[in-house]
């Protein structure tokens, strides 16, 4: 489809009125000989501005020229140096201690207990107490114990009742109370 036809079709649905207007005639004109003299006018302006003739700085050579750019090589060398330095600093050292969590996983409970008992003085007593409390409390029942049955003391018993009680007690019972 030609450019003209494509636009006509587009305008047909959008605005038939604009389609009818002559697009080639918009009332704008140029002075006679304007385009023919334009090139000289531009060069006169270039001379008046003392513009230097442009120099070709980008040379042909395509991919090879790009590959041989010194800046590119310098950047690549810097990136490589940083990568090697990072690897060198982060690599695992021979004989290096393992992280605590990793090391602890290799020990049995008995070994840990034995170590703690041997080096008990090295531990913070408060911390140790808190661990022990937590461990022992885990085994305790969570419900509170039932309240103990209340017993009456001699002060709570009226005098008459007390006297009555003593009369009915044998001598052996009395002795056991005393």
């Amino acid at each position: 489809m030609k450019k003209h036809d494509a636009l006509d079709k587009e305008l047909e649905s959008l605005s038939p009125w604009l389609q009818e207007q002559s697009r080639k005639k918009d009332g704008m004109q140029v002075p006679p000989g304007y385009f023919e003299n334009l090139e000289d006018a531009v060069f006169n302006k270039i001379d008046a501005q003392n513009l230097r003739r442009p120099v070709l700085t980008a040379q042909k050579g395509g991919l090879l020229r790009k590959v041989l750019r010194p800046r590119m090589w310098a950047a690549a060398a810097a990136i490589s140096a940083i990568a090697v330095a990072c690897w060198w600093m982060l690599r695992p050292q021979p004989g290096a201690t393992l992280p605590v969590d990793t090391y602890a996983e290799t020990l049995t409970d008995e070994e840990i207990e034995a170590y703690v008992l041997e080096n008990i003085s090295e531990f913070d007593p408060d911390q140790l107490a808190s661990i022990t409390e937590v461990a022992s409390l885990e085994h305790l029942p969570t419900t509170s114990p039932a309240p103990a049955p209340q017993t009456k003391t001699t002060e709570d018993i009226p005098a008459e009742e007390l006297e009555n009680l003593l009369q009915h007690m044998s001598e052996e019972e009395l002795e056991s109370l005393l």
Partner: protein
Amino acid sequence: MELLRSEQGFERGFRHLMSQYRERLYWHIRRIVLVHEDADDVLQNTFIKVYRGVLQFEGKSKLYTWLYRIATNEAISHLQSKARHASDSIDDTMAVMSNRLQADEWFDGDEIEVKLQKAIAELPEKQRIVFNLRYYDEMPYEQMSAVLATSTGALKASFHHAVKKVEAAFREL
């Protein structure tokens, strides 16, 4: 381009480039700035910019697209500069210029053409450029997309809105 790259052929090559594109670029610029005197200034500045940069043009886009882009930017800069001098917005400047259109000795449009130009001048800057490129230059959306760095979908929508607005504005004038 080959001629431009040779030491002796640069001027001849540049003159050839101007003769190939001068009319298309002129009308593109003229429809943005409306008045011949302004269009002449902008076109000459466009070619001076091209003169300075043509040897650095790497051919990543078509030469035609690159030239249109420079011309469009120069025309917009010219309008912005005019608006700054008048402490006005570009839209107000366009309204003033469209009113002056009939006084331009290089305009002899009839009543309909004057009204149409005034209706187009009322469009926002980007829509006006899209409308002119499509309606007068019949530029395909793909090319326009490369010139204005906008997606073809957005350009189509912009043109459709512009057409409706121009018709409505024309009927109100």
